[in-house]
């Protein structure tokens, strides 16, 4: 059988990747292109007519201060959350790979928050912030805790960050654990013989060798933080007075509550481009720093 003809290659491709290509096209690529088309219309989300308005939605989106404010808030939220998630995840990963007792139990324990859906998580933490913290605050007479954090502007953003860190640190920890495990014992041992202390071997041996873990974790946490909606919805729902509305929620409200589907879609597209640029830059910079053992 000839294996280098075009027909054979096409057949082979269709046989092994045809179905997945079809599904990928129909659930990702086509809706994406259709979504881009909708940004050029002033569709309200239900009507049969989709009047073509050119670039008007983008002009409206660029002039929408509420959108840029929410985007600014998302930047602050993502910046702090990403740093905290990765710092905590790295420390946890180091601890559960340093051969402490019950490390498997701890690994499972730290990972579990990630198994709870964001909506449920938000409601649970809402109770914790509103009731448990306040009760503790009243008991110990602390002014910092005696009124709910969720009712203040800075407090509600802090709550969002705390919950996100709690949710994602365990997941990122697993990736860092894999990174720690992939660093060969030989290299560590060689460093030890050469007189390397514990912290030196982490900074100069382990960390450079697990750059790919950092790239992955940063990418995942950055994109997730930029796209967050579920926790935002169930924990704060934008309260107090709309000061905790993050970009995804702003886009959703614009499209479905304010019924400006085209404008919402345009704002979503801008958010996507920003995410893609940041994610791409970060992966590119990270890959450059990777070293071979």
């Amino acid at each position, binding site marked *: 059988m000839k294996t280098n003809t075009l027909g054979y290659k096409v057949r082979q491709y269709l046989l092994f990747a045809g179905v997945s290509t079809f599904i990928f096209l129909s659930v990702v690529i086509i809706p994406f292109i259709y979504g881009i088309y909708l940004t050029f219309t002033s569709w309200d989300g239900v009507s049969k007519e989709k009047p073509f308005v050119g670039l008007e939605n983008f002009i409206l989106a660029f002039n929408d201060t509420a959108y840029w404010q929410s985007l600014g808030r998302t930047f602050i939220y993502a910046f702090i959350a990403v740093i905290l998630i990765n710092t905590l995840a790295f420390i946890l990963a180091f601890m559960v790979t340093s051969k402490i007792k019950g490390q498997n139990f701890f690994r499972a324990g730290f990972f579990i928050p990630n198994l709870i859906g964001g909506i449920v998580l938000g409601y649970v933490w809402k109770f914790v912030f509103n009731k448990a913290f306040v009760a503790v605050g009243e008991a110990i007479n602390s002014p910092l805790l005696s009124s709910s954090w969720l*009712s203040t502007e800075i407090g509600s953003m802090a709550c969002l960050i705390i919950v996100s860190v709690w949710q994602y640190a365990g997941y990122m920890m697993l990736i860092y654990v894999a990174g720690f495990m992939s660093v060969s014992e030989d290299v560590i041992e060689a460093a030890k013989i050469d007189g390397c202390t514990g912290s030196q071997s982490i900074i100069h041996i382990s960390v450079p060798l697990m750059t790919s873990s950092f790239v992955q974790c940063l990418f995942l946490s950055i994109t997730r933080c930029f796209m967050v909606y579920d926790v935002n919805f169930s924990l704060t729902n934008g309260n107090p*007075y709309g000061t905790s509305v993050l970009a995804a929620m702003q886009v959703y409200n614009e499209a479905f509550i304010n019924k400006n589907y085209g404008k919402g879609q345009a704002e979503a597209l801008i958010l996507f481009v920003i995410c893609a640029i940041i994610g791409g830059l970060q992966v590119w910079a990270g890959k450059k720093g990777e070293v071979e053992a």
Partner: protein
Amino acid sequence: MKKKVLSLLMATAMVVSMVACGNTEGSGAAGTTDNNSTAATEDAGASTDDVKITILNSKVEVQTQFEEMAEAYKESTGVEVEVYCADTDTTVASQLSTRYASNDPYTIAMVDPKDVYSLAADYATDLSNEEWVSHTNLAITVDGKVAGFPTCVEARGIIYNADAIESITGETFNPTDYATLDSFTALLDRLVAGGMEKPVAILSEYWSLGAHYAAEIYEQQADPDAFVNGLLAGSEDMASNAKFNSMMDTFDTLIKYNYAKGSAANADREESSMKLAEGEVAFMFGGNWDWSVLNQYDYTENMGIMPVPQNMEDGMNTKLCGGGSKYFIVDSTDNTSEAQRQAAKDFLNWIVFEADGNAFLTEQCLLVPAFDNIDASALDPLSSSVKAYADGNNLIANYNYLPDDHMTVVGQELMQKYLDEKMTRDELAQAMVDYFKGATPIAH
């Protein structure tokens, strides 16, 4: 070679299984279209057997009642009714748009008044010739055609817990004695002196603040439409408006006695409702739909709704705000057959004219009927209040043409901030005026 055959076989098996899995949905859809076409051919014989209609219920608290009704309805009429429960996380309009986009609309959809206006032209059947039209003044007519069937009447005002008040004052509570803000404030002070430290609860949800409380500012104007259009055109002023100031005077009083003062923007609906039901607070701004939350707690039957007290003497402090709140529309697209449409109309008639239908509406769902021929004596306390005001023609009509983002901007960003005392009344008035200047009007 053997290996190759084996791998080929396995790959084929996988593809087949995937196609088969994908097909279940496809065949499901094909099944419904089949149904439609058979229904359409049967239409000639005007048979209602084997007709199936779908209903979207967006009053989630009565979903069980709807499902039980569907079974009973099938038994008595032979028409199969499939009831879908609306998703509360998103708007009804967005759920409908998904179904329209997939050419599989609900035969009957329960929507908000606003949605009737936006859907009428493309998706709603003309119901003008139905018999029930003459029994209600709450049906929605768009471009000369009756498009919306009023499912129920809902109204808002201040919900009171009479037991809680009477246990402190020792007198029978008569809400009409407290129509003015002065008398209402005096009563609040008496409650405080009697040991109820904070007698008021205010919901912090943006729909309550924006679509319910702030909305009354427009609805109680002499000509709401002219006032809102004036705001949109930038020619009306808020800060000098008597109604705005009157409503905000009352709001200030409510804020002063709010149990959640200090973290008011974060008050929890469940907690507020529990406090009202159990008499820890005496008043809460809300509507008769709140009964479904209140009755989850250790409640008293001795409750009701009273108008928002105001000092302004324009008679509005003797009326509740409200009207038809949920509307049925019957799908007019080709995806619904004539037989289904007829079955849907029959269903609406059943609600209005059959004893079983009446009982379903008023006794099982405990909804206030919008039709003058339906007797409703088994309603919950709040709905009884609403019915009394509705029967006495004491309802201020809902204003259905506020811009779509009114709820999130005025409700959440402004009213909630004012509720939390982080904004002065002048700032609020100015911000509302500014908001309206940039808002997109609703065509009507």
